[in-house]
């Protein structure tokens, strides 16, 4: 069935059930609250960034649908240990992929397993679910405190 193959792939279902880094972080230096007003999802990003701009630890809290939770979980796994600049690049690539401006099958990007979210582009209202954690991450990087996806 289409929803299983396109959207709810097993990896996503697994991350939804057992999200990684679903917790606050010690010595938090950056954080942001993200909202998706359409569905009421709220995700908070917690980060500890060192002097050189390296993400030492990152976690998330809040509530959301399977897509936003799995996306948050996989995001934390992927940005941990990266620099803020690298994380931002990853956000941009991820965003382009889910809105259909980047073909994950092609090269020249760093998405790796995040490519599994490509199917989201077929579900316009779910794109925001997939990007909520990422928008909130960028907000935390920018230290703006609060963001809303519209």
């Amino acid at each position, binding site marked *: 069935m289409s*929803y299983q193959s396109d959207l709810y792939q097993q990896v996503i279902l697994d991350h939804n059930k057992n999200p990684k880094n679903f917790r606050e972080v010690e010595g938090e230096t950056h954080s942001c609250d993200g909202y998706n007003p359409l*569905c*009421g*999802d709220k995700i908070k990003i917690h980060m500890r960034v060192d002097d050189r701009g390296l993400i030492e630890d990152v976690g998330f809290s809040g509530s959301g*649908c399977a897509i936003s939770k799995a996306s948050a979980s996989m995001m934390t796994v992927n940005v941990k240990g990266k620099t803020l600049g690298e994380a931002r690049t990853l956000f941009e690539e991820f965003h382009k992929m889910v809105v259909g401006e980047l073909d994950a099958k092609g090269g020249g990007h760093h998405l790796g397993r995040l490519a599994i979210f490509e199917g989201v582009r077929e*579900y316009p209202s779910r794109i925001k679910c997939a990007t909520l954690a990422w928008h909130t991450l960028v907000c935390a990087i920018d230290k703006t405190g609060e963001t809303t996806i519209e």
Partner: protein
Amino acid sequence: MDKKTAPFDVDKIRADFPMLSAKVNGKPLVYLDNAATTHKPLAVIERVRRFESEQYATVRRGSYALGERATEMFEEARKKTADFLNAGDPRQIIFTSGATQSLNLVAHSFGKSLKAGDEIIISNMEHHANTVPWQILRDELGVVLRVIPVGDDGVLSMEGYAKLLGPKTRLVSVTAASNVLGTVNPVKEIVRMAHSAGAKILVDGAQSVPHVRTDVKDWDCDFLAFSGHKIYAPTGVGVLFGKYEILDSMPPYVTGGDMINTVTLERTTFAKPPQRFEAGTPAASQVIGFGAAIDYVNSVGMDKMAAYEQTLLDYGTRVLGGVKGLRIIGNAPHKAAIISFWLEAAHPHDVVTILDDLGISMRGGHHCAQPVMQRFGVPATTRASFSFYNKTSEIDFLAEGLQKVIEVFG
């Protein structure tokens, strides 16, 4: 068999609605989001087409025959609305662009008579359209906003209400039926108590007017707001009923053409209600289509519709109650045909995506009623809301769909 005892022929009804034969994702549409908006019978679609193709003119301005006839049709819709609500004098019917605009009209216009310390009572089960306008008044004027609590079963606390009422209460604004919980509130009693305290009362009828017979004379409410698009009429039209003397005491809200008597650069005098509140070129096509929707509803019979919808509610409550891990939110004894629930296995947003793949259109979210979500401690709910064109077989199909959801996320 006479009209009263004839069984409800839902297949015949469905044939009146072109949308009900639409396909979604290649599957027949099962539309269960009627609390958001309802589909239009052919009679309404055709009425608008005919007006625009054969009778179109602006209303209330043109003194030529075409304009006069359009004005008559427009005013005829006002009369139909007054009759439909048992409102008496049609001058008590103001056409707006929707329930939100109707509620804002009262907040902005009646609101001008309020001052710091005056109290407004709403409830914890209001739609944002009946919450935010009053918060704005609170923040701008310093009026005090009081909120009637809601019990765990979704019932409005009448004791809580009685305690909030007092000599400073100027307005009570509550919904006749909750768009999330389905709860039908005892409007007549709420009105009586408001009036005893010397307060005016505004009823949000967005979810009740399309589904149960409304009698504003019996209720004795001061205002009633609702939307056309939820009662089988086009988008872009809504109604505010108001008692004439009260409307007549209120300043205008939107200003411009058609709501004035005289305008000089120095001074403007305003028309009587309802014109005072209908500035600008009105949504003539939509109002006329709205009149056709009322005709349609009358032809089916409000009481028959309501009775049938109650059978859908009962059936749905039983069937969904049998789904594993499903908790119905809103269990009032007296409900409109709305069932909100929380499914343990999956977030509402995921539920509706999977249902959508099966052809079922249903809404997951906060339903523009975040304070209700907060009250019941959920971020969102999934909601099935029925109309008299739905069938029990659609409810069975929904239950099967929920089993699929549980399989996927199980």
